[in-house]
């Protein structure tokens, strides 16, 4: 298991033996290791971007804006300002003389043109170096344009994606509590850490509605500035995703005393569990909520299970690899794969924490490789070594899988198919089944060589 692992990364790769393993993590990416991670800016951008009626202005040279233009397709039921890409497009003269004037002028024209409810101004690497005072410009423009203009301190080099999440949470937190939280039910929540990819937040909102739970703010999928401003009126925060919005929940707990629950909407077990803990939380107010939830789960399961069982028969015994951004999602995926008869032999994340990896070691099978902040070379080696049938990751992992003859499921934020909720579990099973059962693998040289190796093992052993 030491193929292609750089020595500085050795303790970030662990084979699970007894479930007590730890993985070294939360380190800066190693230079030259071709990390799959992005940067601080990326973290902030993905968290805030689905807020659909806000202006998202990227202060920097063009690349950061060009590469994040509507990359994730987070859906909105109304305005779609978030799907445009705004940049100050800094040039050499701005670098020399400073970009503040250009930023001011850009905000002025864009706010006039688009009339947003708020503006987020993202700082990029260069802004941190040339020393533009983002805060001062934002304060000035807030006053002038009469909307919140919020700086996001997301200079790319100042950490990893996780620091970007934190910067985004800090930016959003300046909005929370700035509008009266009137007419909000005592049985109410904010949904944190769901980005409405392929309409997923609408699935979750529908479940909550059936349980009689009011959703005050979507944070941030199909998000609205005014909802966030009054979301301190909700009774509970539901936090999904590894930490993207956890900091916001903590800030709200401290300032507004709103409790939070960590949830996951992926896979049958975690989806149901997430609804049950919400029901439990509100059972002292609504006596029927637990029964309503049980009914909901029962009905949903009845709809999906026959097909999932069929799929399971065909996928039974196949092996999966998981490499995702946040480790929390990996927990759910490990369980979801068991549900369709598959075992996970490789699991990793870009930004997992010590706690996350301990949990992964606990829930995975012996022999599973657990990796932090991995790279194409390592992932490829493990795919081959472990004889993986399907790889779950993002678009960056897709060609690794395909070149090596391995099926693939896009479970990143660019996915086009809803994978959350009970319907999402069925979609997930179909996705895996769709790729694994394709006849194309029969022709793939890497798969043929696996078959050859196997048959030579049989004849020689």
């Amino acid at each position, binding site marked *: 298991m030491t193929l*292609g692992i*750089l020595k*500085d990364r050795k303790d970030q790769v662990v084979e699970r033996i007894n479930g007590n393993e730890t993985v070294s993590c939360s380190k*800066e990416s*190693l*230079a*030259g*290791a*071709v*990390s799959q991670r*992005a*940067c*601080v*800016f*990326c973290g902030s951008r993905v968290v805030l971007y689905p807020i659909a009626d806000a202006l998202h202005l990227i202060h920097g*040279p*063009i*690349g*950061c*804006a*060009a*590469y994040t*233009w509507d*990359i994730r397709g987070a859906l909105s039921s109304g305005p779609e300002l978030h799907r*445009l*890409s*705004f*940049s*100050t*497009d*800094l040039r*050499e003269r*701005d*670098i020399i003389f400073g970009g503040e004037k250009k930023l001011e*002028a*850009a905000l002025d*024209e864009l706010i006039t043109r688009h009339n947003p409810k708020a503006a987020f101004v993202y700082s*990029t*690497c*260069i802004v941190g*170096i040339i020393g533009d005072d983002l805060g001062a410009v934002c304060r000035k423009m807030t006053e002038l344009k009469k909307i919140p203009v919020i700086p996001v301190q997301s200079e*790319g*080099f*100042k*950490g990893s994606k996780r620091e970007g999440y934190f910067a985004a949470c800090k930016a959003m937190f300046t909005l929370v509590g700035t509008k009266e939280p009137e007419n909000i039910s005592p049985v109410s929540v904010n949904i944190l850490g769901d980005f409405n990819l392929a309409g997923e937040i609408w699935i979750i909102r529908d479940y909550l509605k059936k349980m009689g739970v009011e959703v005050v703010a979507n944070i941030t999928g199909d998000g609205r500035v005014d909802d966030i401003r009054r979301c301190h009126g909700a009774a509970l925060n539901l936090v999904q995703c590894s930490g993207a919005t956890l900091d916001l929940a903590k800030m709200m707990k401290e300032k507004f005393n709103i409790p939070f629950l960590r949830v996951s909407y992926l896979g049958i077990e975690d989806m149901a569990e997430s609804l049950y803990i919400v029901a439990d939380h509100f059972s002292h107010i609504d006596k029927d909520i637990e029964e309503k939830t049980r009914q909901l789960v029962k009905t949903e399961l009845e709809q999906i299970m026959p097909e999932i069982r069929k799929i399971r028969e065909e996928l039974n015994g196949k092996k999966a690899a998981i490499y995702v951004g946040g480790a929390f999602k990996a927990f759910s995926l490990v369980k979801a794969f068991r549900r369709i008869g598959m075992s996970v032999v490789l699991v990793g994340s870009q930004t997992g924490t010590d706690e996350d990896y301990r949990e992964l070691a606990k829930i995975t099978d012996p022999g599973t490789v657990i990796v932090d902040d991995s790279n194409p*070379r390592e992932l490829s080696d493990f795919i*081959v070594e472990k004889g993986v049938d399907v790889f779950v990751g993002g*678009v*960056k992992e*897709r*060609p*690794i899988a*395909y*070149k*090596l003859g391995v099926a693939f499921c896009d479970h990143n934020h660019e996915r086009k198919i809803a994978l959350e909720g009970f319907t999402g579990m069925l979609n997930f099973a179909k996705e895996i089944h769709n790729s694994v059962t394709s006849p194309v693998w029969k022709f*793939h*040289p*890497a798969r*043929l*060589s696996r078959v050859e190796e196997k048959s030579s093992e049989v004849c020689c052993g």
Partner: protein
Amino acid sequence: MAENHVSTTNACKMCTPMGASLAFRGVKGSMPFIHGSQGCATYMRRYIISHFREPADIASSSLGEKHAVFGGAPNLKKGILNVTEKYNPEMIGIASTCLTETIGDDLKMITTEFLSEFADLDLPHLVTVSTPSYSGTHLNGWKLAVRSMIEKFAGSSPALTADNTINIFPNFLSPADIRLLSGIFREYGLKTMILPNISDTLDSPSWREYINIPEGGTSVNEIALAHRSKASIEFGYFHKGESAGSYLEENFSVKNYNLLPPVGMRATDALLSAIEKITGLERPQRFVNERGRLIDSLVDGHKYINFKKALVYGDEDFVVSMVSFLCETGVKPVIAASGGKADLRKRIEAICKGFCPCPLVLEDSDFDTIEIAAADIKPDLMIGNSKGFKISKKLGIPLIRAGFPIHDRFGGQRIITTGYEGALSLLDLIVNTAITTLQEETRVGYGYM
């Protein structure tokens, strides 16, 4: 018309280091390396993978806060060592970023220092290029990277006798176009040095086992002999200091032919004439036939497309060459827009002369400005990359996809536009797009023509 905006909305360009990374991908055993924060490399990889559907490893020096303050040299050196250990490349192509240019990292100095520090190791060639993203676009980055490789390697092997090889600096064309072009030279029986050659490295077959660096590309040894080639042919517009062909001409007297990318009849004619002028060879019958078929098809299709108005957008070389082709078909380019700058108006005017009026030329532009112009001028079709889809959908204008990036369709790496063959393939698309519109908009059916 579009007002003069301070900000950019929906950029019609990418950043400089992106182009450099792509160009470095076209060298055998080469690993692109971005000196900057980790995000740059990752974002570019993500962008490249979606178009080519190929692995696109780009290393990064992954600078953190302390490096931004104290300089990125230690991380760059560490990164080079790690890439060397893991990928065993023949060359590492290092591009700077806005961050490292602004903190004052001098790539040439750092790599020289590195090579002397680790002189006892078997190290890959290190090529550096200065590509601050606040200066120019991806296309400038591409050209600068090619120029830096030529400056670094050409002439480093002793010039024996002059060779009959022709240097080709194709600029940013698809892998399929590079294969097509190299086929043209093969037909003449000529040897070529294509820099970069992404035909295999960014469009490779399935693997049997893990491959560190995609196979294919032009080797450093071949580049090192570029100074004794018979001539160079380069496509596109080059700002001062960007042209590898000019460098070879100025320093090694290798005659440089600067041509329009060979899209359409005239530009392909010009390419073949240049080849024949350089070599004295006769035109192979194959091209006579291909050209004849193109004319025949232009005639067959002309009534469906004459006077159709087209919006062309993308990188500056793509736009000029596509406008040139459209002129020949009867389609009237009405808007020619690019996020780059390359003296576009003057060149497009010259190209349209005798065919059609000069279109509205938008230079250093963005999709917002393009949309305003399109809503006003109402073109019948659009030709360009995927990023025009929103305009296409909003204004109901059919979009023919070509260029980079193609993120919303399959096969972007295999689109051909060059040579008579490429022109024919484009013509089919354009005529069929026009017929599709007719079928949708009229009751005639166009079922039997």
